């Protein structure tokens, strides 16, 4: 199975909420659409699900145009953000709904429903009503309800956003292992970077209705291609830079020698350095920055270090150090040199 | 799939019902108001004759004006009695409050004809009202001043339509957040001050729209005047009604109804406007 979005866009009146995007979803992967609220994530899901029609472009399933295929006939099923469980039906009836409307025999239905409830770990209360379930349980019912239909893709719209932090982590793990187990393609929508990185095979980052970058979590995290992506994950240190003729980069904090493998298109660039990739102390062949220590916060597994560079003391750099008890504390207001390996520095075009 | 035209057909079918039930009949009687009666036959020739007749005969527009005045009094009595009652009930708590308001609107469900009829027996010369007044020595002997005149119509309408005023007032009181009232008394305001500066202004829109709707109800009523008004108790509604009965002049009746329609429409628009002024 391959789903292909071919230049799909969506306008509401004059407002373009989704710029034309092309995207391939392949079999058995867990693909996440990540973007801030209002960026058009739900719109993408609803276009694929068939709840709304694209303004331009086509949606192709194994090469077949889906534009005339009604929601009820598309081999996709959605897990809604508010679960959308039928309040007047029991768990069992909810899960069996997709089979019931297709006229599945009672015996078979019961068996399939029980299996699905087993998979999501809810076989104990098939007779309960949605109002009698916790958030996480409702979530599982919604999942079970879609997988009994054996869809080719499960579409999940921020399924975990209503859950508290602890439950959320459990459900992330559960979702991922469920997806592995049944081998169905999941298209997952979230605004939470951490969640996206944790569970996805591949990520699509969108902003203002346009795709910023597509890639594996590692690519997106360590090699952002746009300023938005670079700034979206955690507390990245971003610097403006100027590409010179020799290939080195001038920054306010000094010159970075020429980097390999970067194919930059503009002379203005952005330099991104992840806080956890710095080390204390000067190193040969690395980018070294002399700083004054502003403060150091102990956060259990991490030390958060804030420093102001000597060359540009209004700026603050953030460094995360794994907290090793043997490492001595740095003096506040004392001097320190930090270093980052050249291959750990990400440099990206700054078109503006 | 011919989605567009299917939808259009469905749309037309759905719209057809209210249109046939409401719009066409109303348009029809607007049209008929320009026709006239000649030797007991409706003649389809357009003129303003009926309207001119209305404005040139004091009997008609006099009745119209006195009916407006009567309905105004009905609404005013409704508010004067209804507001304190709604306020009192609103101040109760829990079940008592719910039960009281229920009992106050319950009479709305009871047969309209029956209520008028009983009001007639109560107001009659040998009715309970006269018996009570005589028993308390307010009157020397039973009086006919409560029945078969405009007073009888006023009393009866005021009683019958009272729940229609109480309910909207109560509902607009209910919308006032309780913490506003608490805040006001927290700031040292007494019950009366709170009532004057917080509760009255906030419940005013609901009260006005309730009173206006009662006004419309009273305006169109023709059974009450017919049953308790006697030979002198003519109201505009009753005049229209008689054009469709013994007087048999449908075009004139239609013209009068157009005037009633316009008046009611303006009142309803005013009521709608009033209820939009609400701040809570």
């Amino acid at each position, binding site marked *: 199975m391959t789903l292909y979005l071919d230049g799909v866009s969506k306008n509401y009146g004059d407002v373009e909420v989704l710029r034309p995007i092309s995207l391939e979803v392949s079999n058995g992967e867990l693909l996440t659409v990540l973007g801030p609220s209002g960026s058009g994530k739900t719109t993408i899901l609803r276009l694929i699900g068939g709840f709304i029609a694209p303004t331009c472009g086509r949606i192709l399933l194994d090469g077949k145009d889906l534009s005339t295929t009604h929601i009820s006939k598309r081999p996709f099923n959605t897990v809604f953000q508010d679960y959308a469980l039928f309040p007047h039906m029991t768990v069992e009836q909810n899960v069996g709904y997709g089979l019931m409307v297709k006229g599945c025999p009672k015996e078979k239905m019961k068996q399939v429903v029980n299996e699905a409830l087993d998979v999501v770990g809810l076989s104990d209360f098939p007779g309960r009503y949605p109002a009698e379930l916790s958030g996480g349980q409702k979530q599982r019912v919604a999942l079970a309800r879609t997988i009994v239909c054996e869809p080719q893709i499960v579409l999940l719209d921020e399924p975990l956003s209503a859950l508290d932090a602890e439950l959320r982590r459990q459900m992330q793990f559960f979702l991922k292992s469920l997806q592995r187990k049944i081998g169905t393609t999941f298209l997952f929508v979230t605004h939470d970077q951490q969640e996206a990185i944790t569970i996805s095979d591949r990520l699509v980052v969108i902003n203002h209705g346009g795709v910023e970058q597509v890639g594996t979590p590692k690519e997106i995290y360590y090699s952002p291609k746009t300023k938005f992506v670079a700034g979206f994950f955690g507390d990245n240190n971003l610097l403006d830079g100027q590409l010179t003729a020799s290939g080195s980069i001038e920054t306010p904090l000094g010159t970075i020698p020429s980097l390999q493998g970067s194919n930059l298109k503009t002379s203005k660039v952005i330099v991104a350095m992840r806080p956890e990739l710095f080390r204390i102390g000067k190193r040969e062949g690395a980018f070294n920055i002399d700083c004054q220590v502003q403060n150091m916060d102990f956060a259990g597994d991490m030390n958060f270090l804030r420093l102001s560079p000597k060359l540009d003391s209004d700026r603050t750099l953030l460094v995360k150090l794994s907290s090793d008890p043997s490492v001595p504390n740095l003096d506040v207001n004392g001097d320190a040199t930090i270093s980052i390996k050249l291959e750990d520095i990400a440099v990206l075009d700054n078109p503006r | 799939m011919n989605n567009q035209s299917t939808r259009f057909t469905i749309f037309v079918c759905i719209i057809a019902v209210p249109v046939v039930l409401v719009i066409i009949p109303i348009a029809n009687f607007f049209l008929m108001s320009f026709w006239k009666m000649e030797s007991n036959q409706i003649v389809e020739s357009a003129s303003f004759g009926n309207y001119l007749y209305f404005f040139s005969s004091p009997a008609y527009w006099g009745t119209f004006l006195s009916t407006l005045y009567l309905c105004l009094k009905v609404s005013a009595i409704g508010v004067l009695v209804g507001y304190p009652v709604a306020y009192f009930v609103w101040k109760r708590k829990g079940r008592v409050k719910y039960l009281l308001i229920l009992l106050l609107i319950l009479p709305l469900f009871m047969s309209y004809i029956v209520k008028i009829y009983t009001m007639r027996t109560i107001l009659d010369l040998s009715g309970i009202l006269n018996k009570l007044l005589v028993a308390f020595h307010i009157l020397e002997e039973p009086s006919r001043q409560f029945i078969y005149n405009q007073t009888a119509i006023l009393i009866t309408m005021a009683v019958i339509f009272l729940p229609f005023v109480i309910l909207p007032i109560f509902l607009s009181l209910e919308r006032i957040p309780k913490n506003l009232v608490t805040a006001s008394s927290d700031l040292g305001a007494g019950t009366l001050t709170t009532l004057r500066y917080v509760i009255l202004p906030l419940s005013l829109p609901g009260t006005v729209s309730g009173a206006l709707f009662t006004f419309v109800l009273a305006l169109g009523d023709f059974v009450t005047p017919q049953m308790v008004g006697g030979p002198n108790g003519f109201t505009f509604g009753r005049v229209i009604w008689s054009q469709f009965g013994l007087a048999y002049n449908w075009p004139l009746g*239609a013209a009068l109804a157009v005037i009633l329609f316009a008046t009611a429409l303006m009142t309803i628009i005013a009521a709608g406007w009033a209820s939009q002024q609400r701040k809570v």
Partner: protein
Amino acid sequence: MHKTNTEHLIDVFLGLITAGTFFVLYMPIVVNSIFSLVPSDRNGIHWGEASFEWYWRLLENESVIAAIKTTLIVSVIAVAIAAILAIILAIYVEWEGAVFQRTIELVVYTPFLMPPIITGLSLLMFFDRIGISRGEATIIVGHTALVLAVLYRLVLTRLRAMPHTLVEASADLGATRLQTFRYVVWPQLRPAVITGAVLAMAVSFDETLITVFLAGDTTTIPLRLWGMMRVGFKPEINALVTIVLLVSIIMAVITAIRIKPAEGNEE
């Protein structure tokens, strides 16, 4: 909470007005019920002769029985038609993004907002124009127009409270439109429709001002009562009146009980 003396006085004063209001509102009903059981004439009330006699007499009165039948037939048919129309209209207006949505609503509410005499005489002239003679059918049309507003309002409120994702979920799981209505929408609407139907029945049972224009030779209970009352006093009337009151109170209580929990749930 402490109450000052003035507050107490105000409370007592308002309480008295409320008590007076109750007295005025309920006296007619009490008076009626007594007179239906106890015979009275010019010489006074004969307390000793209380009986259900007049209720039995009523059963022998053919014109009353006919009126009851007509009333029931009219209200059942009118309410059924109005309920179906209300559901279709509400779904159409709420979900299909109907064109002229406001206008449609205004038209639906018109018979309820305008004085009944307008609805009555406009339909009378309309039927006369297109040559339909008056009878049960014309009364049914008038009542349908009237109670449609009630049912529409209740159905629409319920529909708005229902998340639209339920409908989408149903379609998503493969249900046809009809299946979605049957298994998802209808169970959600049913309570509102039943409440609305009871309320509409109560309105229809009592409807006089429109009916009188559309009845022709047919009579309904209110028209029959009006006729009987014009002729003059008869204990029979009181018996019929008491039955009518009882039925309407029962309907009112049913409606109240049904609406109350709904109010509690809608935060």
